[in-house]
């Protein structure tokens, strides 16, 4: 039963509402007999008090009845406009993410003791990434985030929401326990793309892939990823957390396939060099991403500082207005009416304690 913006859970209780008129009945026992009022002074404060207790009693009864009827605002959907993007954080949960990052002063460290230094002073990649992502989410209240972990398979943790607390809780939950065994980027990306498929396009979309390792994707997977990203117009950002001794995705790795043809030794050398690099999983993935028809950005991070810069870069990139519908669940207002009734009853008790009930 809906009246305007208010609906009632038990509308039949409103039949009791006429009971609220009971205090308006003028009963003789409410008053004290006096021989003549002519010689008593007229008292404005008294008249206000006499009116007030009636009003309080009516309010108290009406409040209780209305509260029992369970008023609430019905479930609605609200169109909100945010600035920012829909960002799907696709985070690697594999064991390699537990490895340490280079400390921030790694450039000054003797390369021979680098391994030792990293092991002793570095922070785990997943912890740094979670920390930064958490800040990133915090700084961008207008964005809608979704969170998905993956290792051997995707784990959908938080669907798209603007309630940052949920996202933060999801990110924190990623720190529980040790990493899982495998890294399957292909399945994860497909699942991440699928979450966008059923959604109306309301603003720029990003998949933020946070991982330290690449993968060789087979041709069907590549096709699905390419088509999915293109159909849903999703930009892909890769936060590449580079481990010590992992390949660097530099200009050489990003180079297009060589145009060298023929059987000359030089051409064969060039092609061999290219395909040798292609056999490295990270380079292979990077090259595949570069070949995608959508925006692709790589943020390579060796140390926590690099990662912070990369995250800030993502933040700068995406700042467009975004329209989306939000479902507001039914809100119960009976507590408000109960407290109103309780307040009225308390005031009535005060009134009663002040009441003159006998001439003696």
């Amino acid at each position, binding site marked *: 039963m809906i009246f305007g913006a208010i609906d009632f859970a038990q509308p039949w209780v409103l039949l009791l509402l006429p009971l609220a008129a009971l205090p308006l009945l003028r009963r003789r026992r409410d008053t004290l007999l*006096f*021989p*003549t*009022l002519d010689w008593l*002074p*007229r008292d404005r*404060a008294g008249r206000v008090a006499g009116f007030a207790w009636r009003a309080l009693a009516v309010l108290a009864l009406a409040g209780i009845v209305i509260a029992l009827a369970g008023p609430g605002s019905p479930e609605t959907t609200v169109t909100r406009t945010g600035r920012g993007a829909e960002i799907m954080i696709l985070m690697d949960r594999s064991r390699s993410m537990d490895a340490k990052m280079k400390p921030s002063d790694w450039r000054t460290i003797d390369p021979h003791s680098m391994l030792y230094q990293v092991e002793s002073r570095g922070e785990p990649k997943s912890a740094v990434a979670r920390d930064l992502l958490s800040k990133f989410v915090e700084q961008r209240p207008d964005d809608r985030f979704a969170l998905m972990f993956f290792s051997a398979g995707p784990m959908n943790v938080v669907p798209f929401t603007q309630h940052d607390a949920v996202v933060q809780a999801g990110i924190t939950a990623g720190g529980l326990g040790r990493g899982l065994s495998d890294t399957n980027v292909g399945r994860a990306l497909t699942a991440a793309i699928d979450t966008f498929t059923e959604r109306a396009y309301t603003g720029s979309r990003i998949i933020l892939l946070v991982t330290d390792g690449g993968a060789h994707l087979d041709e069907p997977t590549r096709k699905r990823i390419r088509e999915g990203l293109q159909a849903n117009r999703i930009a892909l950002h890769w936060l590449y957390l580079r481990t010590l001794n992992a390949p660097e995705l530099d200009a050489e790795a990003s180079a297009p396939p060589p145009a060298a043809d023929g059987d000359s030794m030089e051409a064969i050398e060039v092609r061999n060099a290219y395909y040798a690099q292609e056999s490295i999983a990270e380079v292979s993935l990077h090259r595949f991403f570069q070949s995608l028809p959508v925006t692709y950005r790589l943020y390579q991070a060796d140390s926590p500082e690099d990662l912070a810069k990369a995250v800030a870069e993502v933040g700068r990139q995406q700042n467009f207005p975004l329209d989306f519908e939000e479902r507001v669940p039914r809100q119960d207002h009976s507590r408000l009416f109960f407290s109103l009734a309780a307040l009225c009853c308390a005031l009535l008790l005060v009134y009663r304690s002040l*009441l003159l009930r006998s001439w003696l």
Partner: protein
Amino acid sequence: MSAADELHEFHYRLPQRAAGQRPGSHPGSSLGAGQEFVSHMSLYDRPDPRRLDLRASVRSTTGDWLVRVNRQRVGVTVQLLVDVSASMGFGARRRKIDVAADFVESLARSAFRVGDALGMLAFDQRERADLCVPATLSRGLGSVMADSLRQCTPAPGGIEGLEDALQQLIGREALVFLVSDFHWPLDRLGAALDLLSHAFVVPVIVWDPAETEPPPHDAIAPLRDAESSVRRTLFMRPKLRTQWRDAVAARRAELDAFLSARDLRPFFIHGAFDAEAMSDYFFEATA
């Protein structure tokens, strides 16, 4: 004060001469067996040889036998006019109507002792026939009248009831006790009292202490007028208490002024009837 041993009688005399034949205790205008000498009369005109005054007869120039003629003291009719309207049903400890019944009992005793006939008329909106007692000289009538007053249920009334009841007393010579709280408009009361010009009227004003004195502590008092059922809520506080007392004093002064303009003196009963005070009232009136 329902027990008979607590009954206090009071002394009352009419301050003026009353015409009446029945011997009693009030100064009368008829001649007869009394202490008050009036004149000598011829024995032939007044053949009462017991009163023969030899000394005066010898001195008489006409040679008549002279007899002393005295004025006789007379008994009068005492009429009670009792207001039994709803306002008389008020009272913190005892209803005002119960206090009035005490007074009636005391008056009945006193009237019997001096040999006056006592009758009662009661009224609220109109005359209450059920409470009417014709004037008689019966000894036990006082408690009957008092009990009937104590047991009657007060109903809303007004000055109309007084005017109605007064019709029976117009032109009668009597001692009238008008027992009420006098919450009446004074202009109509004046016209009503003028009907009693032949009688000696004692306005007995019964007020309850709760009526004249506001409650001592601060409180919200929802009040209802006994007669009109009009409601008014007072927030009792020092300022209002002062106003209350001032209003009571003003009403009292107004009643005093109004009654003394008609040569009447009100007798106030506050909470309980005091027979001594009533005696004093009559001593002052006859002095």
